[in-house]
């Protein structure tokens, strides 16, 4: 090889120069690529395609990762925003419900000016025993709530009477509890009676209206309200409606089964009547 280059190197160089000049002239005179350039690029073309394909694949993966990461971040942000908005909606719903209750209470205050001092309270616990029907409220003596105060809902229907009052809590015996007893009047007929809890009816969420005259003309659905006699409780608070009338064992008097106006299980907020004016 060394000898070949030494002997013929000059010829080889010359041939190369001639070929180069020839190619340059051909390239200058022709509109297409030179044959050698063409041949070289034909060989290189598949490799270029392969490089490009691989590069595109990598770019796609990179873009996919970047997009996924961005979407995940966006998704998390949107989820957070939805949770915040749902929380706002929940608060708004609670506020709307409270607003409606307060509006009803306001209407009640307009209608019942004798109920001079009312305290709103939330129910923190429903029945705790199978032998009593009670509610626990979050208001107590520091809020002016005392044993014997009437508890109503926003429509003015009687829920029960405060039986025990602590510093920041109080217990309400509902209308159907066996210890409950209060003067009542049938709104339509004016018949007087004693509304009292009965253990046999407590499970069915009913109470009795006792000491009615045997000939009383009560109808199913008649509204029964507090009589206010004696001045212990305000008059005209709705207790419930007559479900059925029965004559007692002696036959001299009758009693009615009452369905309370209030659904005790659904109650969330109630109002304690701390003081009231006796209407003559």
């Amino acid at each position: 090889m060394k000898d070949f280059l030494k002997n013929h190197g000059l010829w080889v160089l010359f041939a190369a120069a001639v070929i180069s000049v020839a190619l340059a002239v051909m390239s200058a005179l022709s509109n297409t690529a030179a044959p050698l350039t063409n041949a070289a690029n034909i060989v290189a073309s598949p490799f270029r395609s392969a490089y490009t394909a691989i590069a595109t694949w990598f770019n796609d993966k990179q873009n996919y990762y970047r997009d996924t990461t961005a979407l995940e971040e966006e998704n998390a942000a949107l989820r957070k925003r939805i949770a915040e908005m749902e929380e706002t909606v929940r608060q708004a719903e609670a506020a709307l419900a409270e607003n409606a209750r307060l509006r009803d209470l306001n209407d009640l205050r307009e209608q019942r000016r004798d109920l001079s001092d009312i305290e709103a309270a939330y129910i923190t616990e429903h029945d705790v025993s199978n032998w009593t029907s009670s509610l626990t409220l979050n208001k107590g003596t520091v809020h002016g709530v005392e044993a014997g105060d009437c508890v109503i809902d926003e429509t003015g229907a009687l829920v029960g009477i405060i039986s025990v009052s602590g510093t920041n809590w109080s217990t309400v015996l509902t209308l159907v509890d066996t210890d409950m007893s209060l003067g009542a009047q049938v709104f339509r007929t004016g018949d007087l009676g004693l509304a009292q809890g009965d253990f046999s009816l407590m499970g069915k969420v009913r109470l009795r209206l006792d000491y009615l005259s045997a000939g009383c003309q009560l109808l199913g659905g008649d509204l029964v309200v507090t009589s206010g006699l004696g001045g212990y409780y305000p008059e005209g608070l709705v207790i419930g409606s007559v479900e059925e009338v029965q004559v007692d064992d002696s036959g001299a008097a009758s009693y009615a089964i009452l369905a309370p106006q209030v659904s005790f299980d659904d109650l969330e907020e109630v109002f304690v009547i701390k003081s009231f004016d006796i209407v003559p």
Partner: protein
Amino acid sequence: MLARNETIFKWTLYAAATALCFLIQGALLQRITVWGVIPFLYPLLAAVPAAYEGPVPGTVFALAVGVICDLLLPGAFPCFYTLLFPLVGLCAALISRSLLPAGPLCSLAGTTAAFLMSGLFHGLLLWLGGKSAWSASASVTLREFCVTAPLVIPVTYLYRAVCRRTHLDD
């Protein structure tokens, strides 16, 4: 005979187990209504420890549980559970000493006695108040017992664990 520290430790563990049961009753069971009644764990808390600890300690512990129940629950009269639960404790302890060894069966027997006494006392109080409701009382007692009876097993095992932990030398 346990040393003073061991005695304190034992009753602290019993109190903790009882507090756990109070928590479960208040947080969970009170919100479950089956057959129109809620499961009522408190009589078990008087009966089961007494079955393991014997008449005197068991009755005293049941008395303490009764006082706490009277403080927390609205009752037919102010010291209803304070009067009832020592009897329940004594009864459960006597059953465990003379009839059945302390365990789930003995607890069930003690619990049955507890609910019977509770129903009887409630019925008696209603009768004394002129609002006699014997059949309704019996119905509530039966349903209350049936709903609470399955809970005898976990409560028994809880107190048995306390008893075994604190009577290692027995």
